């Protein structure tokens, strides 16, 4: 058990260092680097999708297929929960 803790802590600190080094390579918070896709969406959402809401236009129009997947995930979770809680004949 002790040994496992030590290995775990080692792996964890390694992972932490790894992550901390990587995040400083990102663009700083509040200044996204490249924005061509999002700027396109913001400027064209009103005349392409006829919607005032940029986020909804992405969710249901530009990336509508993802939302179908998302709805499917909820559907499969419901089917799974109902499957797990079904009454089993003995």
């Amino acid at each position, binding site marked *: 058990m002790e040994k496992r803790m030590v290995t775990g802590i080692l792996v964890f600190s390694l992972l932490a260092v790894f992550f901390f080094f990587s*995040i400083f390579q990102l663009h700083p918070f509040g200044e996204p680097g490249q*924005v061509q896709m999002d700027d396109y969406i913001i400027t064209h959402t009103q005349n392409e999708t006829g919607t005032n809401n940029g986020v909804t236009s992405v969710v249901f129009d530009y990336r509508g297929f993802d939302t179908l997947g998302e709805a499917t995930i909820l559907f499969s979770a419901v089917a799974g*929960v109902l499957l797990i809680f079904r009454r089993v004949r003995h």
Partner: protein
Amino acid sequence: MIEYLPFIAVVAMILIGLYAVVFRRNLIKMVIGISIIESGVNLFLIMLGYREGGVAPIFTSLPSGTTYPGEMVLPVPQALTLTSIVIGVAVLALMLSLVMHIYRKYGTLDVQKIRRLKE
């Protein structure tokens, strides 16, 4: 440094969640750990889309004088996060129903006492 603080929060959340998943012996705590990882990743996504001083990308009653797209936050990360949140709900529901069944079966939530599948 200060502009990277939110990303440090993300990494901290992911590591805390991973710690709970790997080292905690209680099933509920493992579920909580996965939720924390997921919140960390959601936070990461939503932060990628923030623009200094930006408003939500919604044109209904937009404050006058807002120039777009320069003063709006990015919409795509918000949509991705929305998807990710719903996925999180689904995973959580399924995991909790499994935990309920396991508790009924074994009368405990301790991983060490539950483990039957070894070797």
